[in-house]
């Protein structure tokens, strides 16, 4: 088991490398130089000044040399400085990252809490009223754009009813609150974004859960369990559920990038200072250092999440954990 973990971690290294290469390539393969925008704003800059600027940023070197320079800095977590305010990129990211992570974790928790029971019930009571209603809701959840739902909810709960805050992560005078008041304030601000963020996930995962359960229920070993005279409840919860949950672990891992992607628009709508909004701002201002850093870090988060999901899966599925080659029973 430990050997597996080590192997997987080692396998990540080439992928990390690949991530850095792509992140670098995306920005640098475009026509023009990153400094062009800066200089465009002031066409009167002389040729020498332009050259000097390029040398400072290392843009006169060949592409691969630039890449290695950047990579070396990366390993020290130095992503360079932001073009907009010249602060170190890494600082800006560390400011924003926790918020995004918080929202996504909460969303993930909400998704799990709701989608698994819904999926199981839909499968066990296939064709029932509950199943049909859930199916309709799921389809709508898939098809409705998150930001639209956010707008609707905002206008309803926020503007009309006025009970939930519609922007920011904390109120203006947060600093002066007591600890409990701070917690409540934070939670109130989080309700809408987390809800909207989890709708797509609940729809998707409950669907997968349903499918997985249906697949498992038709398996031979469920027939065996029933033949043994076990109660239907035991059959479903002990025998079926454990098998049906296995693929869900993988699916969860695979849906991490989707959650992070969703952050972009959500944070923009709700005015939340997170990674997603940072990325959007960076795109508008052509702040390439921030963009590259955003790519690398978000991809890394996805990778980490997938690694955890893989290890969890291997642990959970005895067919893989106890591999025939290592422990045959004769």
């Amino acid at each position, binding site marked *: 088991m430990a050997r597996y973990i080590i192997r997987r971690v080692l396998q990540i290294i*080439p992928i990390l490398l690949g991530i850095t290469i792509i992140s670098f390539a995306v920005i640098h393969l475009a026509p023009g130089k990153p400094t062009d925008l800066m200089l465009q704003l002031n066409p009167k800059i002389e040729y020498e000044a332009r050259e000097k600027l390029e040398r400072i940023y290392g843009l006169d070197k060949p592409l691969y040399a630039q890449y290695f320079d950047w990579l070396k800095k990366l390993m020290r977590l130095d992503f360079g400085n932001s073009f907009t305010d010249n602060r170190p990129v890494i600082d800006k990211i560390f400011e924003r990252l926790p918020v995004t992570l918080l929202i996504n974790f909460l969303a993930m928790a909400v998704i799990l809490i709701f989608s698994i029971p819904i999926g199981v019930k839909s499968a066990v009571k296939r064709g029932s009223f509950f199943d049909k209603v859930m199916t309709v809701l799921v389809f709508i959840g898939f098809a409705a754009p998150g930001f639209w739902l956010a707008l609707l909810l905002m206008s309803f709960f926020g503007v009309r009813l006025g009970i939930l805050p519609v922007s920011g992560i904390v109120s203006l005078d947060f600093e002066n609150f007591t600890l409990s008041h701070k917690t409540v304030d934070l939670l109130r601000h989080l309700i809408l974004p987390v809800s909207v963020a989890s709708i797509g996930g609940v729809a998707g995962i409950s669907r997968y859960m349903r499918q997985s359960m249906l697949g498992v229920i038709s398996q031979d070993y469920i027939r065996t369990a029933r033949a043994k005279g076990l109660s239907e409840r035991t059959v479903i919860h002990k025998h079926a559920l454990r098998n049906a949950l296995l693929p869900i672990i993988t699916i969860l891992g695979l849906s991490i990038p989707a959650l992070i992607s969703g952050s972009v628009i959500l944070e923009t709508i709700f005015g939340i200072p997170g990674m997603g909004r940072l990325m959007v701002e960076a*795109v508008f201002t052509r702040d390439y250092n921030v963009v590259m850093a955003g790519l690398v870090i978000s991809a890394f988060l996805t990778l980490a999440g997938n690694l955890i999901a893989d290890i969890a899966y291997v642990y959970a599925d005895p067919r893989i954990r106890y591999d025939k080659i290592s422990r045959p029973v004769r």
Partner: protein
Amino acid sequence: MTKKLLRNKLTLFGAGIILLLVLIAVFAPYITKYDPTCINIQDALLRPSLEHPFGTDSLGRDLFTRIIYASRIALLIGFVAVGLAAAIGVFFGSVAGYFGGKIDSAIMRFADVMLCFPAFFLILAVIAVVGPGIFNIMVVIGLTSWMGMARLIRAEILSLKTRDYVLASRSLGASNFFIITKHLIPNGIGPVLVSLIFGVAGAILTEAGLSFIGLGVQPPDPSWGNILMEGKAVMGAGWWVILFPGLAILITVLAFNLFGEGLRDALNPGKS
């Protein structure tokens, strides 16, 4: 299989809506007499009426018209982007699945790396460099969503290439190209087609999202996303500017999803 497809009412419903949308998009100028970009400030933010079934936006433009013209863009981007993704994905996936070994590893590693990037982030990054616009979005979405289809066709080919009829074909003297094109792809394309339909839905949502934050279709070209963006600013004053474009997206994506689900059911040898 077609029988099964036709029997499912929801699937037919989805397909029907898609057809309707395509017709609306194509015949847009005949359906509405307004010009989608003609500004008319005195008619700003009118409620829905017979004259303006969906009301008007903050610049006095007929909302119904804008939404219909936006459907052209949505469908165009959806189909082209996914078509591109499919072409790339099927190519890479079949080559990887059939030849295996180092080629497979290399291609799949590449796909794995690409899959680590949250789609939106990657798309934003590229747009940061090449700028927004209809053509750019189409290409970017296509270039960043081929991985799913590549994996699908690769999985199909991996399992199909050991089938006896492939062995028989080889024994009869078939070349690799013959086997891939005549046996493997026709039998394995099913899941890719399903993925394609869902992909169009996804592309439409992505485009809407991009336009909503201003990095997609640029005004004055109408896109459901940028109509919503303009609507957000006047949220309190006109609920119709937010409701209708969102509904348009909802119905379109729903239609594709229903059709895709139906296709997936039809392709799977029946559930017991």
